[in-house]
């Protein structure tokens, strides 16, 4: 019930409403611009939030994340270039619809389905988050460490093509987080006598480096490969309107997609892309017209779009209740909480409950904001994006990353960290390592270490404490099972591929 006074409070605050609308526009533009991601935009804006109130900062970045997920569909449908990984599923049917002169219709289905999915995710978050927090309060260090362990394994093994590279990325994130003074004994680790390293590696410069500067390097590489210009697919007069009769068959797919996305969103690391493709596959399996899917079915746009956006709200649940970010955007938002001295975890609901519910309210109003702008102005946004000269945009982002990294703490060392992280981020992308697993593990490492060592002290040095406590054991097994399923999946995929090669 806390959500209603929070909604009222946000609606009556014109500054917050302005932040929400601005964030909806920024997120949509960023998400729809191929090569730019909501993560990059949020990381770049992170230092500015030092100068904002916690709620304003969190709401602004949270809504950019939400709107960015939706914005990806604009590029997928109108330019045949998915703005985000998740919108690649929307592109399968969205682009054929656009080519048939129904770009406006497809955009409206995408917008309505995004709103449905996102609102479903947020409502489930509001209902469920209090229960999860109450349970989380009862967990001891061994159980919390087991959850961290499961998160590391799931994030490392499930995202990306290679389990080994994913887990290696997660381990490298942990090792980088270990640089500096040990929080318990104050012993120096990996400092090599450097005073600056003894303060540790900052979250903000690392994120700006990996997501912003790393992306600029990646874009420089991409620009050499791309030939030709991106063109917008125009709608015919009939193709831009959407009737209730046309949307009616899409509704079950949107609702199912909403549940799939919300379920996947709670699990750390899985993310929108997996949700969107599972929803698309499930939608096609249950569709009355499966032969039309892939050739321009409106339902094929509704199913992945709802799932893609439904991930957004529930992905906040592990972050807010356990301090475990389930996505890169969650990891960056954790940075905002830390910047403002707010401790994330189960106690957040005791200390800053009002802030949390106001944030949820901002998220819901953000959905309405991007929904309205998208429904009536997606094609205008697309035209605006086509006018952005990328050869000017990326140099400006390059320059912004340096001044943003410096602004966080006024530290030149942070700028050096950002530069090195940018190059490392590009190398990781180039060699198919998992950047998301690296960053999320970097964020999780300190908490995991603390709970691990507390558990060892509790048991006087014995690691059996993790096996003797049933909840801890269950989470350790969940992590191992996730890895097992992923290995099985990869083996299966390889067998199918080998079979296809054999047939050819």
């Amino acid at each position, binding site marked *: 019930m806390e959500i209603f006074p929070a909604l009222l409070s946000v609606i009556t605050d014109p500054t917050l409403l302005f932040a929400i609308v601005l964030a909806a526009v920024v997120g949509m533009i960023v998400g729809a611009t191929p090569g730019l991601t909501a993560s990059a935009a949020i990381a770049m804006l992170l230092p500015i939030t030092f100068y904002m109130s916690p709620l304003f900062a969190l709401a602004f970045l949270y809504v950019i994340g939400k709107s960015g997920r939706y914005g990806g569909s604009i590029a997928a449908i109108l330019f045949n270039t998915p703005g985000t990984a998740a919108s690649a599923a929307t592109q399968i049917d969205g682009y054929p619809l656009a080519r048939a002169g129904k770009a406006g219709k497809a955009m409206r289905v995408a917008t309505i389905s995004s709103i449905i999915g996102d609102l479903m995710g947020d409502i489930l978050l509001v209902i469920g988050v209090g229960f999860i927090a109450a349970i989380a309060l009862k967990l001891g260090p061994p159980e919390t460490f087991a959850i961290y362990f499961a998160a590391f394994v799931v994030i490392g093994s499930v995202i990306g093509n290679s389990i080994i590279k994913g887990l290696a990325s997660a381990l490298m994130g*942990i*090792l980088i987080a*270990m640089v500096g003074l040990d929080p318990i004994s104050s*012993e120096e680790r990996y400092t090599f006598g450097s005073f600056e390293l003894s303060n540790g590696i900052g979250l903000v410069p690392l994120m700006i480096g990996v997501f912003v500067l790393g992306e600029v390097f990646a874009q*420089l590489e991409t620009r050499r490969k791309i030939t030709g210009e991106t063109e917008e697919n125009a709608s015919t007069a009939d193709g831009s309107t959407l009737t209730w009769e046309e949307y009616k068959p899409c509704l079950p797919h949107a609702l199912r997609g909403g549940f799939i996305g919300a379920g996947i969103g709670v699990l750390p690391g899985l993310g929108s892309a997996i949700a969107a493709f599972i929803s698309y596959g499930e939608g096609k399996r249950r569709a009355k017209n499966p032969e039309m899917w892939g050739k321009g079915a409106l339902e094929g746009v509704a199913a992945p779009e709802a799932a893609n956006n439904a991930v957004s709200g529930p992905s906040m649940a592990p972050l807010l209740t356990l301090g475990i970010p389930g996505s890169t955007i969650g990891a960056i938002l954790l940075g905002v909480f830390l910047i403002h001295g707010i401790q994330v975890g189960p106690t957040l609901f005791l200390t800053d409950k009002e802030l949390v519910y106001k944030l949820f309210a901002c998220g819901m109003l953000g959905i309405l904001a991007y929904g309205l702008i998208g429904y009536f102005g997606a094609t205008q946004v697309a035209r605006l994006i086509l006018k952005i000269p990328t050869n000017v945009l990326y140099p400006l982002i390059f*320059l912004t990353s*340096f001044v943003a990294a*410096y602004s966080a703490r006024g530290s030149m060392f942070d700028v*050096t960290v950002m530069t090195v992280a940018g190059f490392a981020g590009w190398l990781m992308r180039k060699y198919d390592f998992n950047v998301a697993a690296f960053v999320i593990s970097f964020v999780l490492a300190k908490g995991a270490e603390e709970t691990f060592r507390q558990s060892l002290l509790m048991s006087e040095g014995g690691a059996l404490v993790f096996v003797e406590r049933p909840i801890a054991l269950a989470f350790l097994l969940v992590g191992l099972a996730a890895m097992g399923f992923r290995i099985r999946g990869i083996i299966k995929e390889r067998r199918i591929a080998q079979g296809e090669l054999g047939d050819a």
Partner: protein
Amino acid sequence: MRAYAEGLVLAAISIFAIWGAWQVPAASLGDTWAGIVPFSASVALLFLSGLMLAGAARQTASGASHAQDNGATLQIIGLFIIAVIYQQSFRWFGYLLPTALVAPLVLYFFGVRSRIGLAVSVILCPLVFHLIFFVLLGVYPPYGEVFDLLSWIQG
């Protein structure tokens, strides 16, 4: 070959990390060793690098090869060198002068060839960034130890 190189680089990183963790002093009585997590993580990384190398051996046997885009890589290394010099020059020359020099250079890297555009960027980029971050947000700008254009302008 690429898979071998990846495995070897990962092995080198993990051996370095093991050595770094080993430098952490032993724990005092009743405490846990501060190097336990870095040590465990680096040993796990070494194990993964071993798996990668084993996988690479199989890949080589099947004769897989990867085409490399050396031109793009060289361009990115060039941009990285500019980035390193740029961030270092903040310490020597403050924010304005390095930004005025680097802005047209990076624009050129990304294909901007308009002389007027490049010339405008020399003035506009440092000015706009300075106004947003150091005037509006009130961040204290980095001071150039050798020469600081901002101090010179302000007299």
